[in-house]
């Protein structure tokens, strides 16, 4: 039982909820870029929310199903086609053996997730299947390439493709997402970083009022943000200290970098802000050239929104489990 990569994408990998407990050794957590989409795909596929999934950016891999599978896609819309026919995101699909899944066009978003019922059966490293490219471990230890075989743990007995009638949408789970999935129109909530006050008054205002564009040099480590050049009123040398997924650092040239899933464990640039985790999905799904803006919130609201999102995900998971049972799957 397996899925074969018949055409490589540019940066596709196996990811899960991330690898924690080793950051004191410099081993960063990695994990899915859009954790919300990853968990929604897993819920729809009847999996544990942090089960291993295939993460894809565009151009994405083409996949061949050697055996039938029960799958769900979530996150970016790369116009998925199964044996040439369009298939939806956020809806479970029964895939017949011998099918080909291709992604033809990047319509929206940056990262698409494929969850397979039972999970992708790949190697764990330090308790996680997330691919750690620098260490060459977890998952396949690298980005996927042509000919790779991804074993799957479950295969349903079906001979034709079935698109099951239940579906969900990001805005049902994340109150921050608007009707347009992964919309960037609404400002991203941030809590100020410890060095926010190192910006001069005007730059503090600019940061919260002006739009920033996601830069071309954006990958799983970080997204460059270009906008008004920000100036520091305090220019101390900052000693390296821990940073996290969503931390926005000010680079010496006045540009910003938002740290992503493959960020290093520590950094020495001023931390201007942290994008709250409930809004991270929208940031992560932004593509080079997209405009974003920031609005201030506090730690209490950041926590409340994260907890709300988590609760909605649990409810989605229960609903999907119920549907699967009802359908006899």
């Amino acid at each position, binding site marked *: 039982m397996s899925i074969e990569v018949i055409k490589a994408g540019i940066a596709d990998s196996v990811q899960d909820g991330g690898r924690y*407990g080793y*950051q004191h050794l*410099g*081993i960063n957590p990695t994990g899915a870029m859009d954790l919300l989409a990853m968990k929604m795909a897993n819920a729809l596929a009847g999996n544990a929310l942090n089960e291993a999934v295939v993460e894809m950016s565009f151009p994405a891999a083409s996949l061949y199903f050697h055996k039938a599978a029960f799958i769900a896609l979530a996150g970016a819309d790369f116009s998925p086609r199964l044996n040439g026919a369009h298939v939806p995101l956020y809806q479970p699909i029964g895939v017949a053996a011998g099918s080909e899944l291709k992604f033809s066009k990047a319509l929206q978003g940056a990262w698409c997730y494929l969850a397979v019922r039972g999970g992708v059966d790949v190697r764990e490293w330090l308790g996680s299947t997330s691919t750690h490219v620098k260490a060459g471990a977890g998952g396949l230890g690298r980005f996927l390439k042509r000919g790779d075989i991804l074993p799957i743990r479950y295969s349903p007995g079906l001979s034709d493709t079935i698109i099951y009638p239940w579906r969900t949408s990001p805005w049902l789970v994340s109150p921050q997402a608007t009707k347009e999935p992964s919309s960037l129109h609404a400002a991203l909530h941030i809590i100020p970083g410890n060095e926010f006050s190192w910006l001069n008054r005007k730059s503090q205002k600019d940061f919260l009022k002006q739009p920033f564009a996601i830069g071309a040099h954006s990958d799983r480590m970080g997204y460059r943000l270009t906008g008004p050049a920000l100036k520091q009123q305090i220019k101390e040398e900052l*000693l390296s200290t821990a940073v996290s997924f969503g931390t926005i650092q000010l680079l010496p040239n006045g540009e910003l970098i938002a740290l992503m899933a493959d960020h290093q*464990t520590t950094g020495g640039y001023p931390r201007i802000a942290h994008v709250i985790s409930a809004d991270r999905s929208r940031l992560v799904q932004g593509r080079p050239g997209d405009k974003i803006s920031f609005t201030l919130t506090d730690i209490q609201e950041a926590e409340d929104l994260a907890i709300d999102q988590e609760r909605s995900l649990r409810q989605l998971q229960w609903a999907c489990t119920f549907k699967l049972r009802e359908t006899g799957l």
Partner: protein
Amino acid sequence: MKEVSIFPVGEQALSICFGNKPDKEINDQVFSLYNHLRRQADPFWKDLIPAYCTLTVVYDLKLVRSHSACAFTYVKNSMEQALEKCIDDEGLTFRKLLIPVCYESAFGLDLPALAKSNRISVDEIIERHTAPTYRVYMLGFLPGFPYMGMVPDAIAAPRLATPRRTVSAGSVGIAGNQTGIYPMDSPGGWNIIGRTPVKLFDVHAKQPVLFQPGDEVTFYPITQEAFDAFDAFDARSFNPISA
């Protein structure tokens, strides 16, 4: 303890900050709290990340919120309590490691430039570099990369203006008053002065990383022949831990 501040790093982590300079006494406070917390099997912590002057606690937001309406306040309060308790802990003890380094010209790529800029001979650089016992203040940048200090001013040097595309695994470098070792091939901007045959990172090992935060490290020079013999002998069976 009067200068301790606690602030959020996103809504699922906070840092306890003891100052902002590379200083053994400040770093002792970091490790005192780090060791205290590591001795407790507290289910809230997902990661404890020590650095020069900070300890960062990554916590399980959902779990903490099942105990309290504000996780940050809850964790902050428990950190303040832990700070008081850890004063009573026994003195800090650290592992001691002896690391062989070959400073021959094939490996010490930046030795000539460093000698020139710091007006010191290559032999003196080696002598100065091997004299102190360094502390691993933190690991970061790459899995298993130790940030050690402090190197004497006489051999301190800023990072290279143009970082190298590839620095070989085992390369020993200097950046400012810090010394470090590249655990794997990587781009890098530290001044490379030698190379160790010891493996710092082994993905297949149960403990993939050789160093731990707080380790005390001393370097000793070896010849090219010893380096080659060491390689052949099997670097993995070498035990650099002397105490």
